[in-house]
């Protein structure tokens, strides 16, 4: 169950990678920092509210909703800003994708340092040197065992993570498959030139893609904070790599692939940790990725945001 909760968080972040990749064929390396911003946005709200103890019932749901809204706004906004500053000029220049990758790495370094040096010390009232230390968060949900399936215990917080992630993914699926905007995204992913000819505003669609992907990362940030109750300026890095692995595992550019890849990766890591010890779980995750790619070079479900199997 822990693996499933982990996997849901991976999947939410992976959605951001996969959407941007589907539309722009670009690895958005700074997406992990968008997630990091989500964790800090929700931590900020928690501090503002002055939470005294774990919540239950409606208070909990309301609080989660508030956190999600704020984190989605913060992360989505940051993602749009990132696109504006780091990617748009390059797209206008017709730069290579390698250049965009470097720009993304630069933006990623910038955001990490910005948080470590300025945001964390100033906003979260930590001493100047403390910007690089982990920032703890108050407990939001009790760790009660709700019920057991076989010998696996299901805890409240884990269930919440999985349910919230599922809700977000269903919502995103609806947006991409059922709305006009979603059609624009799919059209651009399929054939950008034809989409332009059909009157789709590419810039608008790209911005929107970043907004949606960023919002998903924001929710992932909330859930991460709830589950682990700690964050730091570097938190995005490891999770970002894993989430990207998940996206590739499922088939990058494919929304369902991101979901599947995230869950599979979470479960594999969990089992791998049981069999080989937790220090090897990252190695196992990457080995599985290599093996899957050898036999299915485009991931488990293949790449197809285009084919609307979102």
């Amino acid at each position, binding site marked *: 169950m822990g693996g499933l909760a982990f996997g849901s968080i991976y999947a939410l972040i992976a959605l951001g990678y996969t959407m941007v990749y589907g539309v722009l064929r670009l690895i958005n390396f700074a997406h992990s920092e968008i997630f990091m911003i989500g964790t800090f946005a929700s931590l900020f709200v928690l501090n503002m509210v002055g939470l005294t103890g774990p919540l239950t019932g409606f208070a909990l749901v309301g609080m989660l909703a508030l956190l999600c809204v704020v984190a989605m706004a913060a992360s989505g906004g940051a993602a749009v800003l990132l696109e504006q500053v780091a990617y748009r*000029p*390059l797209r*206008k*220049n017709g730069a290579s994708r390698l250049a*965009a990758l470097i720009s993304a790495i630069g933006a990623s*370094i910038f955001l990490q340092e910005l948080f470590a*040096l300025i945001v964390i010390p100033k906003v979260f009232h930590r001493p100047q040197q403390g910007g690089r230390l982990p920032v703890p968060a108050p407990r939001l949900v009790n760790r009660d065992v709700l019920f057991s399936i076989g010998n696996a215990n299901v805890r409240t917080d884990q269930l919440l993570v999985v349910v919230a992630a599922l809700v977000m993914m269903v919502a995103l699926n609806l947006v991409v498959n059922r709305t006009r905007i979603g059609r624009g995204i799919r059209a651009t992913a399929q054939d950008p030139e034809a989409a332009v000819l059909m009157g789709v505003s590419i810039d608008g669609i790209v911005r929107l893609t970043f907004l949606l992907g960023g919002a998903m990362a924001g929710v992932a940030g909330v859930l991460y904070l709830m589950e682990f109750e700690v964050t730091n300026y570097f938190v995005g890095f490891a999770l970002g790599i894993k989430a990207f692995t998940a996206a590739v595992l499922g088939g990058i550019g494919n929304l369902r692939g991101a979901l599947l890849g995230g869950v599979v990766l979470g479960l594999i890591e969990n089992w791998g940790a049981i069999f080989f010890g937790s220090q090897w779980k990252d*190695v196992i995750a990457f080995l599985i990725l290599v093996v899957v790619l*050898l036999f299915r*070079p485009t991931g488990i479900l293949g790449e197809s945001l285009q084919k609307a199997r979102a």
Partner: protein
Amino acid sequence: MSGDADSRPSGPLGGLKRRAGEVSERAREFWAGASRWQRWLVYLLLIGLAVLAPLPGIGAVMSPFTDWTSLLFNPIGIYVLLALGLNVVVGYAGLLDLGYVAFFAIGAYTMAYMTTTYGFTFWPTLVLSVAFASVSGVILGAPTLRLRGDYLAIVTLGFGEIVRITAVNTTAIGGARGITNIPHPPDIFGTEFLLDPLPYYYVVLGLIVLTIVFSTRLEHSRVGRAWAAIREDEDAAELMGVPTFKFKLLAFAIGALVGGMAGGVFASKVIFIEPNNFPFILSATILAAVVLGGSGNIPGVIFGAFLIAWLPERFRGFAEYRILFFGAALVLVMALRPEGILPSRRRRAELRSGTGGLGALGAEVVGPTDTEAVTGQKTTGEVQR
């Protein structure tokens, strides 16, 4: 450079860029028309400059905050060497490798383990470092090089992490504590290799010159042409009878070889290595050096690596904020000059031909490199915006 200037809005910045473009263009023309002795003169001048670089007078300007000679060895020399190695993979063959640091680590660990456990001396072990690194390049490449660009990127990234985590978890090579007391190289011509960075700098310089000669020779050989063909259109290259897989593997092995060499020298200088010497961010930094300088062009790559290694150290006065600026500078340079500071001519032609890259929103294949594009003018078939 005219095509470059025309395609963008002019302004104060545009004027500056055009002027810079003219200078670099004139330098290129001189170089193209230079006779053999003129070229040798320039080579000798550059080598002389590099040999004289550790002088204290230069150090006072270049690095008022840290010992300049140490800087020249690490990070500058090491970064230049690594960037030259990665340039073979990324710049020549066009393979995106995000785990290059793994080969650096393998070279360093080979040196550390063999010298501390079996009492080998420096030079034979350096050969071993190189051999192990290139074998591991082949081992990584053989199954993965059939993958397409972005998948290759993530698999190499994974490989880098696997190597690092394995080093952390294997107690035989010190685990997270690393390996200590790596012996220094033996004396050469009475020069002692101890804590003074100067002799190490000259060793690295020698290796750099060797690597430059090696990779320019390769670039202009049959192998280099095959790489260029693979980079520009792999399917077409395959159809033309280029054994693409073999050449990609070769590029990987050569890149790994240089990485391993850098690792070996690094380990024997620092005496103590641990897995945290080889984080992913180092791979990203070296890649940034290659792309920033102009991938595929050796002077560009060296310049890029130098800037990336030197700037954060030079501005140590700004203490912690230097990394912040470093990140911002990467974004800025890529926005202003996406082809790198000193792009290779062939690469720029590819960019200008315009159907590849982000401009066309996702066209995988780089457009045709016709004569018009080679002269630096915009082709008509540009389908962006």
